């Protein structure tokens, strides 16, 4: 394992926040894709900051270790047409590893960090059923590839394509979302910590519900909206690792920007090749321009 100085890792993460990547758009739950996307010629920049706590991650000495991870994910999306958008996603991660006294590598803390694998993605909305007023039902497919950053600790050093489907339904103050995605992993991240970083196929399935807390009804002038959100996120690797998560959160949308926060905790998980997730806290901002 490469050991780097903490401030170097933090700097890399900070730089990662400035690099261009890809994102989606309105009334989208924090931890999943939606069928909403920027219109033609519209850019959306999204920055997600996340803290994740893992336990029982495999280490090089055959033991286990705990991991505290901070990540900054930059996402940039652009609408090519009203129903086709492209997105780029670049995450930077810093991990602090804490080994127990029983580890063959000894009782110590190490730090890893750098740019993790990037993603290029297209989203095609193939069906849009708009009703007069705000109600709408939208369906989209995602397709893309996760490419290597060649960071020796964080990269799978492979090109892993994925496909997905998502839907968004908005009825008055209620928003419903759902989606599935399958990533054809062709190689594994060394000592994978997060589920999905192994060398086997990776399936995600998500459901979300958003309730508009305010305003009760829109006025003629643009005004911000506040939503309460709850998500169910299921993650499965072909080798059997699985995590089922629940994620309450809040989303605020102004006419040209949005802010979000979500806390994700497991309700059921079984991992052998990757680590157990204890908690994930995500805060993000989206900017339209």
């Amino acid at each position: 394992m490469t050991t780097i100085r903490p401030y170097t890792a933090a700097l890399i993460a900070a730089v990662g926040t400035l690099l261009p990547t890809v994102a989606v758009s309105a009334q989208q739950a924090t931890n999943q894709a939606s069928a909403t996307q920027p219109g033609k010629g519209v850019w959306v920049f999204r920055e997600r900051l996340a803290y994740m706590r893992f336990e029982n991650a495999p280490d090089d000495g055959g033991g286990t270790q705990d991991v505290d991870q901070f990540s900054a994910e930059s996402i940039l999306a652009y609408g090519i047409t009203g129903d086709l958008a492209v997105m780029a996603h670049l995450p930077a991660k810093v991990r602090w590893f804490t080994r127990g006294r029983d580890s063959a590598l000894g009782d110590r803390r190490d730090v890893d960090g750098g740019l993790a694998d990037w993603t290029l993605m297209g989203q095609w909305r193939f069906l849009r059923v708009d009703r007069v007023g705000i109600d709408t039902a939208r369906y989209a497919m995602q397709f893309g590839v996760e490419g290597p950053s060649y960071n020796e600790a964080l990269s799978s050093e492979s090109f892993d394509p994925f496909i997905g489907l998502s839907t968004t339904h908005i009825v008055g103050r209620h928003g419903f979302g759902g989606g599935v995605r399958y990533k054809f992993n062709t190689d594994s991240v060394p000592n994978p910590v997060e589920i999905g970083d192994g060398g086997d196929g990776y399936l995600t399935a998500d459901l979300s519900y958003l309730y508009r807390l305010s305003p009760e009804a829109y006025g003629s002038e643009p005004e911000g909206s506040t939503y309460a959100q709850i998500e169910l996120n299921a993650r499965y690797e072909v080798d059997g690792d699985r995590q089922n998560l629940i994620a309450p959160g809040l989303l605020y949308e102004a006419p040209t920007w949005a802010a979000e926060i979500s806390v994700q905790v497991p309700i059921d998980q079984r991992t052998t090749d990757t680590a157990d997730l204890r908690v994930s806290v995500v805060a993000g901002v989206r900017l339209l321009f």
Partner: protein
Amino acid sequence: MQARSLVNAISRRAAVIVVFSVSSLLMAAGCETIPTTGSTTSTDAGEVAGETVAFDVAGLSCPLCAHSLNKQFDRMPGVLDHKVDLSTGRVVLTLSDGPDRPTWQAIERAVSDGGFTLATGPLDAEAIAVARRDIAVADAIEAHGATIYVAGPVDAESADAMRSQLSIIDGVSEVTPRLDESRFHVAFTEAGRVGETQLRDAVELFGYTVTDVIPDGDTVEGGAS
């Protein structure tokens, strides 16, 4: 292990297929032709009559959606002003009389490019009037008049211009400037017909800042007239 090898082999083949498909779709998107929105002086079927056009759009479900649609009209030649009313989905465009005046097809295309669906064709003059009134009524002042307070001193020439601008608002019956107190009193013909935004816009058009708009004390809600 054999099953895992098989999955990985399938994954590698699928990777090639997906990457090829993504490339093809993106290339196709990049080659899409964009219709010309200018030079529409001919009397083709798509010509839009009148200074303003109003229509309804479906699927505007959030503030970001309204912004996304506004962006389409921001860059559309020949659109002098636009208003998207999220509460009703109604859009009102003010169009130029020049050669860049957009066709109805171009407007329809802009709505689609924003990611939304046109719910109606161009509405008639009466509907436009209702649309304008709806927009005004959404922040209407439920009183028979209001006082507009302006930041800083107002010179006489600007006051005359503002008074003229306020006077042409539908529903305004009388405008009384008080320059010594940097305020205007506006009397209405009927409570609830004039929007606060209309009053602010009429003053701020001349570079002044409105600090407050206070409805008259004889509010309709209170039962007095």
